[in-house]
């Protein structure tokens, strides 16, 4: 019971401080929105190509919008650990750990709050895409399914990022590793181009990139429909990402809290 109570209060604390800095929520949204608006203009003429809009129908926007959702969640969750670093540096974490608070709630609450904020951001992106004329094939249930996939992705990466913060302790190092991981993860995927238009090597590499599974799953749901053989694989891979991330984060936290 204490576990749930403590997690709830820490989630609330984290959400509250984020909501008090709405500037920050919109600042992190600025980049995905820019991509959504600019890329769909730049690549507009690709809309009729097979694998993008051709065959299945739709535009480059329909093809690209799910990728922007994944990108938003990836970047938002990969930087979640910086809040933990702040708490370590300012002594907030030590002070909390000297109370009877359930240890694991301290990291769990922060991760849950990160995922909640990411879903709010994803919702803003979807609303913007709808305004721009995106067509979502599976409607509201498909969007909810997409959100579930995004939650798994966010959970895994947020937990991983917090674990990384606890492991490396220094802001510069966490920043370097985070940048080193997120950029290739984004580009080594079918986020911008359909798989069969990618060079052979990239098409091979993307298959070991968890981000690609999220992109494929979200794109299936939003643009093409329930393609279950893709979706099952996506669910399994993202669930594994979530479990791996949470395990790593928990272990690092245990090491810190002794």
């Amino acid at each position, binding site marked *: 019971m204490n576990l749930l109570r403590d997690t709830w209060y820490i989630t609330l604390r984290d959400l509250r401080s984020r909501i008090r800095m709405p500037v920050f929520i919109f600042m992190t949204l600025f980049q995905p929105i820019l991509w959504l608006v600019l890329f769909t203009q730049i690549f507009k003429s690709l809309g009729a190509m097979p694998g993008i809009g051709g065959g299945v129908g739709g535009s480059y926007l329909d093809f690209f919008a799910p990728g922007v959702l994944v990108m938003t969640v990836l970047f938002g969750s990969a930087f979640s650990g910086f809040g933990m670093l702040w708490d370590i540096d300012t002594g907030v974490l030590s002070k909390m750990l000297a*109370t009877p608070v359930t240890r694991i709630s301290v990291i769990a609450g922060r991760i849950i709050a990160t995922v909640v904020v990411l879903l709010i951001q994803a919702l803003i992106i979807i609303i913007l895409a709808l305004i721009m004329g995106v067509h979502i094939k599976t409607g509201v249930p498909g969007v909810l399914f997409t959100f579930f996939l995004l939650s798994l992705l966010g959970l895994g990466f947020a937990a991983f990022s917090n674990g990384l913060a606890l492991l490396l302790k220094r802001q510069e190092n966490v920043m370097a590793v985070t940048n080193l991981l997120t950029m290739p993860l984004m580009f080594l995927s079918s986020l911008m181009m359909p798989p069969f238009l990618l060079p052979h090597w990239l098409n091979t590499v993307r298959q070991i990139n968890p981000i690609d599974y999220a992109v494929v799953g979200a794109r299936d749901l939003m643009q093409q429909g329930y393609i279950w053989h893709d979706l099952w694989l996506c669910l399994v891979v993202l669930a594994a990402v979530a479990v791996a991330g949470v395990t790593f984060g928990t272990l690092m936290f245990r090491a810190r809290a002794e």
Partner: protein
Amino acid sequence: MAIIETHQLTKVFPGDIRAVDGIDFEVNTGEIFAFLGPNGAGKTTTIKMLNTLILPTSGSAIVAGLDVVKSATEVRKRIGYVAQDVGVDEHATGKENLTLYGHFYRLDGKTIKERVKEIFDLVGLTGSENRMVSTYSGGMRKRLDLAMGLIHQPQVIFMDEPTTGLDPQTRASIWEYIRDLVKSKGMTIFLTTHYMEEADRLADRIAIIDLGKIIAMGTADELKKSIGGDVVTVSPCEDKDEACKEFIRRSEAVLTGKPFVTGMKPTDGELAVYVNDGASAIPTIMQLLSGQGIEVKTITMSRPSLDDVFLKYTGKTIRAQEGTRTTFAQIRRMRDRRQQ
């Protein structure tokens, strides 16, 4: 009755760094107990073992009747912790910070409301409860930090360098709060400090710690009396160079064995001479030294401070003396007055 009790408490960090090296002490209920020592002496490490943040390498510690390793969660319920860093959340109001800790300490909503009101009053923050902490001054943050360690009315409060970095006025007011707490709530305070004045004026008993070991323990008066009399500090040089060291060595040799000298400690550029009566010793010291061709540049007299105690036991100063120093001119005036 002892509320804190350690037995051969030791913490060794990787690289065989013995931060705390087998310390034994007891703190009695309702006492203000201070750990005094320079930075790196092992004060914070001791506090973190006592408040369950780090595990001892060996030895044991009992806090509020419970073992800090075996019953960590139970110990946490009974203690408050005020760290050196002010661990308050900037992006929340004072009340939100305090309420969160009320939940952590498993208090019910009604009790939290009452305590929040009471504690804000106690630390003098009434009226600022609903302001964001980011608008608080340094002193206000420290007081909030203190309040967060008090909401569950702990039996023991651990304070790590409670007034480091605060202006003298805020420091004095924090001392007031600490004394009030002990008086009104019967709490026990364990604090660390490198300010001699803080230990001197606030603590009932003091343990002087250096290089992970307790080197002396007692009330401030007991510790000072262990030196006896006055401290006359002689400096035969202006620059701290080799020649100066030589002068100090020679001065020490001259004064060695003189009946009025109870002890001596050479330091960087100075020689501390412990005597029973400083005013009568000064002319004698001057005479003896000038007789050997050692020219005294400055000579000062002071009552023994905790720094002198520290100097006597370790051969080092915690930092340059302050406050109670008497200048050469004042000594001459004292002597003149005596002669009249």
